[in-house]
């Protein structure tokens, strides 16, 4: 498994960079263009929320792309642990609906040492 990490300032202007990076990773893995667009949106929903809630207490956040042959797993982390479970109680909100619909597996509240995690499978026929 290959692991790529991106550390970004918690600012709105760098969310597009996260999208660009994930599109590069997903393209390299062989996802089709349509799925790459989906992944970009799902990832951005998390970045948006972190940027909105993140206030000045934290300077940056980390996105880890875990690349395996048949799956892309994306893990978000941040030193400010108050950003954990950031989507809690937002079941009806646009962001959550989008993430749930576009990704195969989502862990909004992690017991582990990160904020949240989401994965999407690379279909054999794509």
């Amino acid at each position, binding site marked *: 498994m290959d692991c790529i990490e991106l550390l970004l300032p918690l600012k709105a202007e760098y969310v597009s960079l996260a999208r*660009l990076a994930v599109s590069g990773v997903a393209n390299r893995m062989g996802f089709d263009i349509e799925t790459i667009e989906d992944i970009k949106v799902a990832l951005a929903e998390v970045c948006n929320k972190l940027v909105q809630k993140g206030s000045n207490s934290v300077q940056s956040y980390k996105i880890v792309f875990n690349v395996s042959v048949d799956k892309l797993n994306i893990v978000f982390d941040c030193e400010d642990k108050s950003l954990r479970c950031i989507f809690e109680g937002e079941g009806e909100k646009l962001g959550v609906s989008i993430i749930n619909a576009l990704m195969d597996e989502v862990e909004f509240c992690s017991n582990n040492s990160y904020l949240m995690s989401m994965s999407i499978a690379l279909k054999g026929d794509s």
Partner: protein
Amino acid sequence: MSGELKLRQENKQEGTCIYISGEVDIYSSQGLKEKLYEIVDSSEKDIIFDCSELNYIDSTGLGIFVGALKKAKQNNKRIIITKLKENIKKLFVITGLDKVFVIEE
């Protein structure tokens, strides 16, 4: 990157046509909101969004669309969203917003 956000307005017979092009994200949408709400508020006709050149939108942008819809309704105007790309139309369906807006080809 694949396109700055641009708004262009054209007053037509059928309504006020707004061409949105580029990417509407958390950063680019910061200026969009006011501009859009102003156009909607001052429009005496229905509002038609032409999204043929809209490449990216997420919940930030969708939220602004919803806000525009609320303003339009206050003025008894409709918002008609046209020419959505497939990946973006999908987001309207996912969120149920396809039933809130009038969406046309």
